[in-house]
């Protein structure tokens, strides 16, 4: 959790106020972040850069505007596509998946099953 992406103490703002640590899954993999912070921030802190692949060119996209306007950071969250992760608060147990076009990235399902021990 204490990765280099998180600011421990800021010269002006001091110690950032954050929610309690919660676990969520990213493409089936368990990760942790701070409750209530945008999903995108928890992912960024964990080093995840790619949120989705585009429909036409299959190019990677990630955080761009960070305020819910540009929609580059959309992912499939709890099964619903096009969720703006930069303005969606992280909650315990969220299922976050890379979006490919408008569906979860293929192969994730297998990954998840593997993680769950169902294969």
């Amino acid at each position, binding site marked *: 959790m204490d990765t*280099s*992406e*998180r*600011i421990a*103490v*800021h*010269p*002006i*703002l001091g110690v*950032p106020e*954050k929610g309690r640590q919660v676990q969520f899954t990213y493409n089936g993999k368990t990760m942790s972040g701070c409750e209530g*912070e*945008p999903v995108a*921030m928890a992912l*960024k*802190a964990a080093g995840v*850069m*790619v*949120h989705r692949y*585009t429909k036409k060119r299959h*190019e*990677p*996209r*990630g*955080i*761009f*505007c*960070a*305020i*819910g*306007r*540009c929609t*580059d950071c959309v992912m499939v969250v709890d099964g619903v596509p096009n969720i703006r992760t*930069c303005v969606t608060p992280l909650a315990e147990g969220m299922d976050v998946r890379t979006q490919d076009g408008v569906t979860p990235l293929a192969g994730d399902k297998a990954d998840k099953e593997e993680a769950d021990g169902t294969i």
Partner: protein
Amino acid sequence: MERYDLVIIGAGPAGLSAAIEAARCGMNIAVYDENKRPGGQLFKQIHKFFGSKEHHAKERGFHIGEELLAEADRLGVDVSLDTVVTGLYPGNEVMIKKGGQVSHVRGDTVLLAAGASENMAPFDGWTLPGVIGAGAAQTMMNLHGIRPGSRVLMLGSGNVGLVVSYQLLQAGCEVAAVVDAAPKIGGYGVHAAKLARCGVPFQLSSTIVRAKGGDHVEGAVIGRMDEHGKIIPGSETEIDCDTICIAVGLSPMNQLARMSGCRMEQNPKKGGCVPVCNEYGETSVRGLFAAGDAEGIEEASSAMIEGRIAGIACANRLGFLEDGKAKEAVESNEQALDTLRQGMFAPKNRGKQIEKTDEGFPVSQHLLVTGFLGDDEVEVYPGVTHPKGLHPVIECTQNIPCNPCQDACPHGCIHIGSFITALPAVEASAECIGCGRCVASCSGQAIFLVNEDIGGGYASVTMPYEFMPLPEKGDIGLACSRDGQAIGEAEVLDVKSVKAFDHTNLLTIRVPAELSGKARFYKAAQQ
């Protein structure tokens, strides 16, 4: 349908200021903001604001936001957060979305204070993860405590680009360079100087040719541009970075205004397409007002005053404030607004080449190109003098509406006069007691306390310092010049952190006497 005397869209500086004025007159107000926290962009602004003391100068943006909120709260203004205004319909009907529900609300007056959106500059690879807007960088580090990257390339040298670059340094990121297509730095010289002395290089007349990387940014190629904006072949250089930040200006948020059917105009001085407004901010649709960036891109300080004017005008329109009082209140606010709109960076001067200050001093061209003043150049300005003993050195060389330093000095060392954009001058006859208030009060971090001879061939330089970790008394490190180059050894004589200085620490270093006019930053020795 729910109906209010005034519906305010946006709880930023303009919206909150309007709400405060209108609430004072007893109006029934609804304020809507789509964010989870009010204050608009103020809560991402961790630097001290410019302007006059009466209008929050030398206060940090987020503190101003807190004050506005507290005031609105005292007056019983209800700010509805996480509430999206989804449309503005005929008859000043506002459709809002809150929770899982939409509702229709009407305002006898409606104020559009929805702020701005960021402009973008496309280049090859600008869609790669790791290319972000400057606003995104601010949101990440100042609201969520997340570093946007470890080494950032900034595109754009306007105030946003400069301020965000500095904030990136404060958050512990490196800034690889500030690149701008223009041949001159667009923002305040003092903001540029803060970066330059931290060693951030400026690359002007240049642009990003492409972002490199597979599925995220792994570097950038920049190139110099000729006068037609074409890249000069062979001028390309690679920059090592993992993040590219775009700060190429703002545009007024205008979707709601356009939806309302009010008359719009393309106004480059206001940053884009804005509603045509009268002096009170009223659009061509009766009862529909606009203020702040939504009415034309300016500083938050102007937005607050515009908001107040609109609030007063709405109160007057509906009979909550009589004509005479309204007129008086609007006039005094207009005067304040007029003051803020003076100087080299005034909206009316956008795009103009300015060679001389109002006082007739040459504008440092060196500053505009490199981000720092030449060692000799600095000598001509009225803030730079060489009396015996301790004295302030003010490296403020452009006409900017800002005057807190004048009042900061209890001994009258600093003089600006009544004209807020005048350059500060150091009064030779006044005596400096070394309190450091001027240093901490300067939003541009352009004031230093210098004693050119503290004995033993040494001089002392006191500078503002807003980084972590804070050096300690007795540390030995490096003195850096205005361009960030190490020029000699420095010993930390004192570190002063006073609550009143609001996180601007005063760092006093001892340097060889010949460096007294050059040493402007301190770097810990490499470990």
